[in-house]
């Protein structure tokens, strides 16, 4: 955990980008509600999915960058203990991001109710996107492609075809019923599979690094 905090601190200005987007998401949701006389909850749900879920991968990708692109990347693997595996870091970062999302949803709960279903759907989407970024980064030994892929996926599927395609993890409609969690279980299972596959690659990478 201490290492992770140091790695996050090392991001300097870039550490704060998710904070900026979360604050912006708060403003955008408020504006969307105000623009629709506090009626258009479906639009709020899509804004939250673009801004909150989309930026979940920011910290994980930028932490992974040090392990995959920095000049001393081998050293980072050499000094790694088993508890320091990257997958744990990814899960910790997801937990940290989810904590921030909880705060944001507390604020959303003052604007519209209920928020719990949308919150659950959102944090599961965040977990999936982090798992996907982790898997792609280790598969391709590169962090640029997972970043592009993540945002291309979020922008395309949340705006162009939304949930009409089976490959979409996003939900459409008013977030006031448990129906929006229909796809969440599958997304959660997929996230687990991606983490497992990523972990297998990480173990190989760890061995090769030594």
């Amino acid at each position: 955990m201490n290492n992770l905090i140091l790695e996050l601190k090392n991001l300097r200005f870039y550490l704060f980008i998710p904070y900026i987007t979360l604050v912006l998401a708060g403003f955008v949701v408020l504006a969307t509600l105000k623009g629709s006389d506090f009626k258009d909850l479906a639009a709020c749900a899509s804004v939250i999915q673009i801004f909150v879920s989309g930026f979940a991968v920011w910290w994980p990708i930028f932490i992974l960058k040090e392990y995959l692109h920095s000049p001393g990347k081998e050293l980072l693997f050499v000094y790694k203990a088993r508890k320091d595996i990257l997958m744990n870091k990814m899960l910790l970062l997801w937990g940290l991001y989810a904590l921030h999302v909880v705060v944001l949803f507390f604020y959303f709960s003052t604007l519209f109710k209920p928020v719990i279903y949308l919150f659950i759907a959102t944090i599961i989407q965040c977990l999936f996107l982090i798992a996907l970024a982790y898997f792609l980064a280790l598969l391709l030994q590169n962090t640029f492609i997972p970043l592009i892929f993540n945002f291309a996926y979020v922008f395309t599927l949340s705006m162009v075809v939304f949930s009409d395609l089976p490959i979409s993890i996003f939900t459409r409609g008013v977030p006031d019923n448990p129906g929006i969690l229909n796809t969440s279980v599958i997304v959660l299972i997929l996230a687990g599979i991606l983490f497992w596959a990523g972990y297998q690659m990480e173990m190989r990478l760890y061995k090769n690094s030594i």
Partner: protein
Amino acid sequence: MELIKIYEYILRVFWRSKNLRIPYIILLLLAIALVILCFYIQLQYNYSFDTLRLLVWPIIIFVVFFIYISYELTVKIYDHNMPEYLKTYGQGLCKTYGAIILCLLTLIMIPALLFSAFAVFLYFFIHAQYPPFLLHLLKLSLLYFVLAFSIGGMLGTAMAAILKSRRLAVYSLTLIFLFLNTRATEALFRTPYLLFNSYGGEKLLYNIKDFFTIVPLELGSTFEVAPLYGFPMEPYRWMLAVFWLLFPLTLILYECIAGKKKKMILAVSSLLLLLAVGLFSLRGSTLLMDMRTTSFVIGDNMYYTEMGHGPAVLAENPKKFAIKKYIMDFTVSNELHAVVDLTVDNPNLEKYDFTLYHGYKLKSISTADGKPVPFVREEDYLTVSPAPDTDRLVFRYYGKSPKYYANCQGITLPGYFAYYPKAGKHEIWSQVNNSYVFDLPSTDSEYIVSIHSNLKVFCNLEGNNNSFQGKSNGLTLLAGMYSQVADKLYAEPIREDAPVPNAAMIRKADASITEACKRLQRSPEPFLIGDRKIFQVPRTFHLNSQTESAVVMSDHITTDGIYDGKNFAMEIMQAHFNQQREPVFSSCYLSCLFDSLNKNDPLVKTRMNHVSLLKELDEFLYLESQVNSITPEKLRTLPEPEIVEYSKRKQRYDEMFLTTHLKTAYYLFYQSPCKEDNLRAYFDFFTSDSKEHYLDLAEKLLREEVEHADR
């Protein structure tokens, strides 16, 4: 070393790098899959503009991918500390960059040519036989594929040259670039005016976005492409594309070149930036199909309704003068530039009121001999005070409208729109209907028009070579991918949602009108199309207005699409109705009159009881009076219990709105034993100047029927 040799080495480096080769091969496979998908969609729906839109949608992702390829390929020089070594050779670094750019161009050309070939193939596949469309597709290929991909390559190379291995910065800039080229910005950019009432903030954000927009049809755009205009490719977009190619090139050169030339490159780079910003600010009339407050879609609605520019209720406006003659000189470049010389029929007035859309900025008003004339402008209205006995006034103005655009790519200026000064004060936008208002002069004026444009302009008056002359009560100008398709019929040749209009359709429409009038025992003469010219305008016109299905002027008609003769006849008839406040009711009326009701509709099939219908109508009218009596300002001052009561009434009113209209219309005009009398009564009402509420007449007719049944 020879450039060609370095180019070969760089290609080898690319091919040996798994990080680059595998994603590139995947990208090519995706490009092929996209083309196959587009072909499948074309076979399914047979609508080439939608197919092309699907092809263009993900282009920005390809551009971002080329940023990745070019960055990763170039940054290898810095990851392996090569620059100093390369600089020891004669222009070694420059040649290496040149070879990298050549290599990137090679890689870019494969998907770009694939997409371009598909676009051209589509032209032949649909048997378009309209060369301007082929030219449009070639331009599309160049701007949206070749140039856009090359820009991606140049940006990635420039970022590697300037930012080197600072990946965090490169990632962030790439993401900002991707974000600005999608519709994800829409919700964010609305925030300044929705929360802080800052329309300027929104405008600034969109200006920044537009400057960075490489693919004009953005990812997430849901609006259809108008076949008259095609994909946005105005001159400023080409200028921006060239800028985004040259500006990164200057940054790369700055990195390669040493000594005094560095300063020169910096100066060129700054000059380019200044020039691009300057030209960008002069972009003029452009087609903006998004949800910004100045867009085609909501621009006028926002201006008149939300931003508080709506005119005060116009006082009775007795017609004091008419315009006898217009001599117009239009130049359509980045926007409309006009010199309009008009002659009024009554030179003895102290003041003359005119209507000219607020988007047109007046430079001057003068007499025929050049003496300036004082005037006062208030939004759309002009009050001119010339010296006595002045019958000719010359207006000089320029500007644009978000909806009725005029630029180098297309012109849609219908005769009912105030893009030139019209006599009297007329409402342009109705806040009640959320639609445009057409208040056409009752008398014809004489027009002498000359238009300077790179496009062939089609006009309701006679003439050629963009010079026209004749008499009418409105001047319509259309240009772009537009043509005369039959005698007196003008339309977009590549519009696939409707058949190309033909004379048989018009004959069928006239026959339907005659038949309907015979049923009504009224003369069909005023409603017949006769020898009027017909201009089909883009279907997108109905996006923000329900009144433009058909507009009838003295010598021509504009319509947003002729689907079949009967439908067109109904639209023509509706255009003659004065009471257009509620399109649902009048559409139902026309469906009954023209016998085109859907007989399987459950509401049509259900036998209605006129007593309960009358009760329902009474309740609806009561609710309407209650809801309309409370303005938004008054609502804010009401105590909480009254607001709750108002909300309940409003909800009930909204629930009843559609069904009450449909049930009333279906009963009165289809099920009632007095339906023929009802049809006649409403026909006289719709074609009169009566200010009575259209449902009051329904209530009266129903009450009479109830009383008659009681007796």
